[in-house]
């Protein structure tokens, strides 16, 4: 269903942007080397893309229609947490 594609994109973009914004912001205060920072963000992005692509529709979309923006926010937060943990595990695996 095309509507689902739009919904998936909204959820994926929201989750990715949330994590990347946070990571980008925090790295900015910790690393002064611009190139290094950029490459770390690129690395995070690549990992995120592959994690997001590995999620199924059921992993990403809420069950049923969220009844309010609070419901929707709660769902997004869950996906963010799940994604963040996967990302962390992926990064730790590289160590």
């Amino acid at each position, binding site marked *: 269903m095309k509507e689902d594609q739009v919904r998936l994109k909204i959820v994926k973009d929201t989750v990715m942007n949330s994590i990347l914004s946070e990571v980008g912001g*925090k790295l900015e205060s910790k690393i002064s080397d611009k190139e290094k920072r950029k490459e770390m963000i690129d690395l995070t992005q690549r990992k995120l893309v592959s994690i997001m692509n590995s999620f199924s529709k059921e992993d990403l979309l809420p069950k049923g229609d969220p009844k309010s923006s609070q419901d929707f926010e709660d769902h997004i937060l869950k996906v963010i947490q799940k994604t963040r943990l996967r990302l962390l595990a992926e990064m730790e695996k590289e160590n």
Partner: protein
Amino acid sequence: MGDGKWRNQYRRRHGEGSDTFSGGGSQTKITSHVSKSDISSFLIPVLKEVGKAIFPPAAIPIEILYQLYRHADAVKDASSAIMKGDYKEAAKVMATEGAKEVMGMGIGTVLEPEINKASDSLKDIVRSSLPADEQGKRVAGEIAKGTVKGLAEATADKIADKIVGKDKVMNNERGSSQTKNS
């Protein structure tokens, strides 16, 4: 919208190349500038911190994301119309669905950049034509029904006309030739 920086990077990188991880010691270069020790010193601690205060996501208010999600079918229809160059239909869908904020600000978040460009004019028109945010939905409902006389200027057709008119002016480079009422 403030989140363009990371979004653009994502778009640029999406699907490009593959991960460049390689095995080796703790100083192995992951990319030309990033080593494994960088990951353990910076990325991992950052990722551990991130979960604590991650919301609100990006720069888009959750209410807008929620409305976009709810109106996914309208977003799809509006974007299809824009892709076909049918601004009138797009404006109609956008105005009918109401959420001025959703359509004005949020639509760009789910459209590709080239559509974004085209939708900029739509966003401007929708923003300037519809009243205050909290009334957006109600008003758009009324607009859709065509029942509010006082809002005639904001009807979907008028919005579409404005867009078409704007484009015509831009194409002809002639400026406004509207007759003024005296």
